[in-house]
């Protein structure tokens, strides 16, 4: 009897897991197809999923009274999202396929912001819960457990989509072309196919699948404005575990993760958040290109647009740096009291951005998880105050140590991978750190954070604290810059340009990258420590993916190919956010439009603006 109970429970739990897997698969597979064909890491995929849900909600309200009408509403929502995807592709992405990968990421991040605010404007802020699907609104009994019929329908749809995609990719000319583009881009152009058409088609297909995934959620969950970001990270995890570009991989990874969660919550109800990132980390460590990924995606060497050689500062550039330094020193006297607070934040974020820039530009090491080291620095300082009653000075000294140790640990794994897989592993580690900070309440204070992390008495005046932060951060930025010119920095640049050549001249590429990680981690840790004292508190948010994205946006906004880029990016991003907020509720929309426009018009960032102006003038 007990055994029967147990078996039936296992079966019921497995079915529940499969139903979740079905949703996850639909979202992940679209992302995977888009990445496979266009190589664009589409951050806005979650937004398309959200749009699918909202559009389906509205259509269901009009026509969802019967099974057929409801089904039609869901399908029409998918079609509508496919069309929206086509518009995004042909108006935005098409212009930036030749831009560096990270710029594409930034552009899609801009789309996320725009869609978020537009959705709120159109549908309002309330969660919208659609009625159940007529005909599939009950449950059937399986081994004594009531299993919703819609769950079974959803599982059926997932298999149908899997089968349909298999047929499409194996049996149609279009599918064969998509596969060819995924496996070997040169081949497609050699065949004389219009790549633009193929890319648009792939994006429309991916968007429609995301829209379908969102629409199919309507009978299960409410449409809400948090759907976009909450799904996108999970979708990336599935795609990476399955292997970028692999449809079967996405399916198997979705099932793997969903079943792990379904059974994991029975045994460890508290750690479900960490579980999927642990699975991803373990998968990538054991199988660096995911379960079904192809190693060729691993080549990170990009020789299309080599950077110009590094130039030491000449007299005018030196003068520029001095003006910036001098401005930083006199600004508190010129501007008001509040400006000191903003300037402090800018100085801190500039160091954070510079440490990220050091990795990306200096070493070609793309990370989506740089928040980990910033956050560890902040928590290092905060926990020192909280648990050890440490003063500001020792706490600030602990910050880079915490950042460096985290980077040392995470970096050891991450440098074994390259390209997008490395980026995703860095994200996994950052999210694991975030989950721990969020849920280990006894030690970290959880979501309520660590309070009372205020500067010591001697630095409690905002101006004094500003000078401290400014001088330390400026010194650190200068040090990072110095490192780029040192043998270590040049060798790191070499590993970015050609890992093959580097190892052929005796450079241990992995060790070199590992040390670069650690160095950047220490620098990010310093900025995190100052951030904690500037805000007087530390919250898990500092470790969250949004902090990593903020860092990337600052770096890209400022311009990658200039040492001044991260500083300009930190200034612009902080100011825009602060000032827009005063003016409008729709500041995300404005910021998103600004970012998208910037990527299209100024792919070299703000630092490239001056270069552009000069070119205009001389031509």
């Amino acid at each position: 009897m007990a055994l029967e109970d147990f078996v039936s429970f296992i079966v019921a739990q497995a079915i529940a897991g499969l139903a979740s897997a079905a949703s996850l698969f639909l979202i992940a597979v679209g992302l995977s197809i888009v990445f496979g064909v266009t190589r664009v890491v589409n951050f806005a995929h979650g937004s398309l999923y959200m749009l699918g849900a909202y559009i389906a909600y509205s259509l269901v309200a009009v026509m969802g009274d019967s099974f057929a009408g409801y089904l039609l509403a869901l399908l029409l929502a998918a079609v509508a999202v496919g069309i929206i995807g086509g518009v995004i592709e042909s108006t935005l992405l098409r212009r930036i396929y030749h831009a560096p990968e990270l710029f594409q990421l930034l552009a899609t991040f801009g789309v996320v912001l725009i869609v978020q605010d537009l959705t709120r404007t159109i549908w309002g802020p309330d969660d919208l819960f659609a009625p159940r699907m007529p005909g599939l609104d009950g449950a059937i009994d399986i081994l004594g457990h009531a299993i919703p019929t819609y769950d079974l329908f959803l599982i059926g749809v997932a298999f149908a989509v899997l089968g349909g995609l298999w047929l499409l990719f194996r049996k149609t000319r279009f599918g064969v072309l998509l596969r060819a583009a995924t496996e070997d881009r040169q081949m497609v152009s050699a065949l004389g196919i219009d790549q633009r058409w193929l890319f648009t088609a792939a994006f429309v297909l991916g968007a429609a699948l995301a829209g379908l995934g969102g629409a199919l959620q309507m009978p299960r969950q409410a449409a809400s404005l948090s759907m976009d970001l909450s799904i996108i990270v999970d979708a990336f995890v599935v795609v990476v575990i399955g292997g970028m570009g692999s449809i079967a991989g996405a399916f198997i990874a979705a099932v793997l993760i969903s079943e792990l969660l379904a059974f994991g919550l029975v045994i460890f109800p508290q750690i479900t958040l960490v579980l999927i990132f642990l699975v991803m980390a373990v998968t990538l460590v054991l199988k660096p290109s995911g379960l079904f990924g192809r190693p060729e995606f691993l080549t990170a060497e990009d020789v299309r647009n080599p950077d110009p050689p590094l130039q030491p500062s000449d007299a005018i550039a030196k003068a520029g740096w001095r003006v910036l330094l001098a401005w930083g020193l006199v600004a508190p006297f010129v501007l008001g009291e509040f400006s000191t607070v903003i300037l402090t934040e800018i100085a801190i974020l500039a160091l954070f951005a510079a440490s990220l820039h050091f990795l990306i530009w200096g070493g070609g090491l793309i990370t989506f998880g740089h928040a980990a080291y910033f956050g560890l620095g902040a928590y290092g300082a905060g926990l020192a105050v909280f648990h050890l009653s440490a003063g500001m000075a020792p706490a600030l000294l602990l910050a880079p140590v915490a950042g460096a140790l985290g980077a040392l640990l995470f970096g050891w794994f991450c440098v074994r991978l390259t390209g997008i897989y490395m980026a995703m592993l860095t994200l996994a580690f950052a999210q694991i750190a975030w989950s721990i900070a969020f849920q280990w309440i006894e030690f970290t204070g959880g979501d309520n954070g660590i309070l009372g992390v205020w500067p010591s008495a001697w630095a409690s005046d905002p101006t004094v604290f500003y000078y401290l932060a400014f001088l330390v951060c400026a010194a650190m930025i200068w040090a990072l810059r110095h490192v780029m010119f040192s043998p270590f920095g040049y060798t790191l640049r070499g590993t970015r340009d050609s890992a093959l050549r580097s190892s052929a001249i005796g450079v241990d590429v992995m060790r070199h990258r590992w040390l670069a990680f650690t160095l950047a981690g220490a620098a990010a840790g310093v900025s995190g420590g100052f951030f904690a004292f500037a805000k007087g508190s530390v919250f898990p948010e500092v470790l969250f993916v949004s902090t990593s994205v903020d860092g990337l946006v600052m770096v890209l906004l400022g311009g990658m190919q200039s040492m001044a880029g991260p500083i300009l990016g930190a200034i612009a991003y902080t100011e825009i956010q602060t000032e827009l907020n005063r003016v409008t509720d729709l500041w995300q929309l404005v910021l998103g439009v600004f970012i998208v426009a910037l990527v299209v018009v100024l792919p070299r960032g703000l630092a490239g603006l001056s270069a552009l102006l000069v070119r205009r003038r001389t031509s």
Partner: protein
Amino acid sequence: MSVLTVTDLAKAYGGVRAVDGVSFAVEAGERVALIGPNGAGKTTLFNAIHGQVQPDAGRVMVRGAETTGQAPHRVWRHGVGRTFQITATFMSMTVLENVQVALASYHRSALGLGQALRHRYRDEALALIAQVGLRDAANRAVSELAYGDLKRLELAVALTNAPALLLMDEPTAGMAGDGRGEMMKLVDRLVADVGVAVLFTEHDMDVVFGHADRVIVLDRGRIIASGAPDVVRADKGVRAVYLGTYDDGAVVT
């Protein structure tokens, strides 16, 4: 003591034996050409010697020290320089900086955080650059160089550790006729001047028979002939292998 000794080296991919029990040695000052039809296993053999792929069996010794299975950066410490079929250089640096980075590695200061690299090993680097005839291009960005000059740069970089052995994968691939001759003359001169041994693969039979002291012919992972160019050229087995791959005349003349 041979500069390079390869003993019973084997590497299979799936069921395909890319390198199947290969043994040979290269002596100081010797230019050895490794030839064979496409898919004969030349590149795999090169990569196995250089440490990019792990051999399944066999040994590799460089100047009497075992290097089997060691990573390329360790093999390099034994005095092995390498150039690639498709050049691998640091595209975002100048010619001079490319060589300086390699010299920093040679002088074990690649981890140095102190003095800027551009002030270090300058004269040494310039001398190497002059040696390959790129003196005038020292401060040019590598991304601006012609392909032939990239090949020269690779050679200069490969010489930074005063190698005993140069592994050159298709040293003249992608170059025009004149360039090929010049490149190989450069190699000949280096061999004469510093006594380095050169193991190279090459498709151009003029280059092979004009510049190799010895030729090793590989087919389906095995050595089917080895010896002086004239001897190999006359070998019936070699001719059989090359029928259909190269026209008969190319081998015979």
